[in-house]
């Protein structure tokens, strides 16, 4: 690897780490451990082999600090580019196996009223995210 290529690779990895921190902030409280951000960066060559074109759309989402959750929701529902979904899913996998995030994925105790309200709230929330995502996809040509 020559000096420029090594430098580019490092810069790409830094971008991916920043991306992981940004995505983490959308869904979870607190800051992301650097170890997970490193893993997120290391998993990319495996999950996106030789596919630089596919990464352009999501890159625009991160550069412009758009609401990635809203964009991903619209893209997932309409079965459009799966790249953003795949990136977020990759991060979720890496987080789910850490005890700190156990409560985000598994209910620790029975709380029927809270969960019912959570589901109803989630339906409204999803409606809002869908409209926002649809607008962002149209406005920034992310289809």
């Amino acid at each position, binding site marked *: 690897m020559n000096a420029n290529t090594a430098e580019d690779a490092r810069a790409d990895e830094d971008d991916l780490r920043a991306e992981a921190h940004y995505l983490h902030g959308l869904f979870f409280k607190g800051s992301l451990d650097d170890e997970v951000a490193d893993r997120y960066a*290391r998993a990319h060559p495996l999950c996106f082999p030789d596919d630089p074109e596919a990464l352009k759309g999501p890159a625009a989402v991160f550069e412009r600090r758009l609401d990635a959750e809203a964009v991903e929701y619209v893209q997932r529902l309409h079965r459009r580019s799966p790249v953003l979904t795949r990136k977020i899913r990759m991060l979720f996998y890496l987080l789910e*196996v850490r*005890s700190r995030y156990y409560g985000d994925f*598994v209910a620790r105790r029975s709380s*029927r009223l809270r969960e019912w309200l*959570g589901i109803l709230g*989630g339906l409204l929330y*999803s409606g809002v995210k869908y409209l926002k995502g649809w607008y962002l996809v149209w406005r920034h040509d992310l289809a």
Partner: protein
Amino acid sequence: MHDAIVVGAGPAGTAAAYALRERDVLVLDVGFQPPDLADPRKNVFELRQSEPDLFDFMIGERFEALHNLHRRPISLKLKSPRMTYIAREWQSLSPLVSDTFETTMSFAQGGLASAWGAGVYRFTDRDLATFPICAADLNPWYDLLTEHIGVSGGADDLSGDFGSTEGLLPPMRLSGLASDLLRCYERRRDAMRERGLRIGLPRLSVLTRPHRGREAYRYENLEFFRSRDPAVYNPAYTLNELVDQRRVRYRTHRLVLRYEEHQDHVEVVARNIDDGVIERFRGRQLFLGAGTLNTAKLVLQSKDDHTTRLPLLDNPMSCIPLLRLGRIGAALDVYDTSFSQLAAVFDQGPGRPLIQGSVYGTTGPLRSDVLFDFPLALSANLTACRALAPAILLLMLFYPASHAPGNFVRLRASGEIEVFYGNPSLGEAEGRIISALRRLGFLGLLSLCQYPPAGTSLHYAGTLPMSQQPGPYQTHTDGRLFGSERVYVTDGANFSALPAKNHTLTIMANAMRVAAGATEAGR
């Protein structure tokens, strides 16, 4: 020269070797082994709360668990880091081309039974109606296997469908949700039976008490991550026992390529996958147990036949999610299992085949495996997943396979197996089952049913079917290949039909029957 050579060490090869154990037996197998790492002995939820980071165990240093994000999806069990050995290198060892058939093969010791659901069901005379053998031919071997591997289950409405309850270990403990379903069914049993639906306990090769030196199941729910649990039967246990007792010789890393039959022996040609060296082994009899597809390939390869199209049977499948509203937000069953909680049989009436189902909970896999299938924004999906996990059951339905002239297996001149398999149209039975289960308080929607593509069941059979009057590429009732004196087929390849039941126990029982019969014939 050996008395017998067995190809493969999955359920069929191992069962054949067991029945041949009094003779000089050589088992040839690729035989990949699980990683030599100690598995955690703790409940999955305790583990996830107490261990700060389970990356190595659940994701893997090479990100094995992310497999389905970037490659053709495989069973969730096969992608966790300690399970990847099961499907290791199968595409290069036995390449298969198909646009219509989604398969996974295994060259691991124990075969795909290293990641199975452990369902073990006897075929009844109704199941064997188009076979040239009957249940009485298999029953002694079913009985022997029930004792040997340890089968849990019980007497209930499904006893008529699943055969003798003699020798069963006590049933596994049910989750709260599965208990709800069984209780509701028992209350409305007559109405359900009128609709053709019967529900009861599954038969599982999972020990509910210590048995033959193996410990009882501990409800740690690690089936998706742990390579081997002593409580869950794996053919490797039997084979290793036979090897330890010096009853059989086991040569691994040998990929059998073909055989040549001579007047007084069979010569088996195998490639050592480590150094590529071609080796030859001689035996008086040969028992093929490499799996339905690979056994067919071996036979075609040995005859240098690249034109004949062999038949193939595969159980079509569907998956119905069922929601119990009253359990939304309930406490999760932590000490649970990923094995089938209940079994169901849907009887469509006289002259129509039975459909069999298995009911599973959803506590086993990682949430990230399913979270993105929910139709909400991701934050809402996280909430929904937490709330719904204790309230959702999955009913996996297996249909009997039917012969269709268009479905075939062929060996290409390039050495690849070519498969064509048409996807049947399903949905009618699902609608009727959903309607029946709704009356029990379990909600399902036809639009949420999933219909995995052909091949996904991994239940294959019938490439070299048994017949009373066999022809080319068929087998005699004793498992002997037509036109051969010394070659026997012991796996699903020799099934004449494929009912809706998991066929592993029958593969093993029939392999024992074939091997024992061949021993008699060889004397």
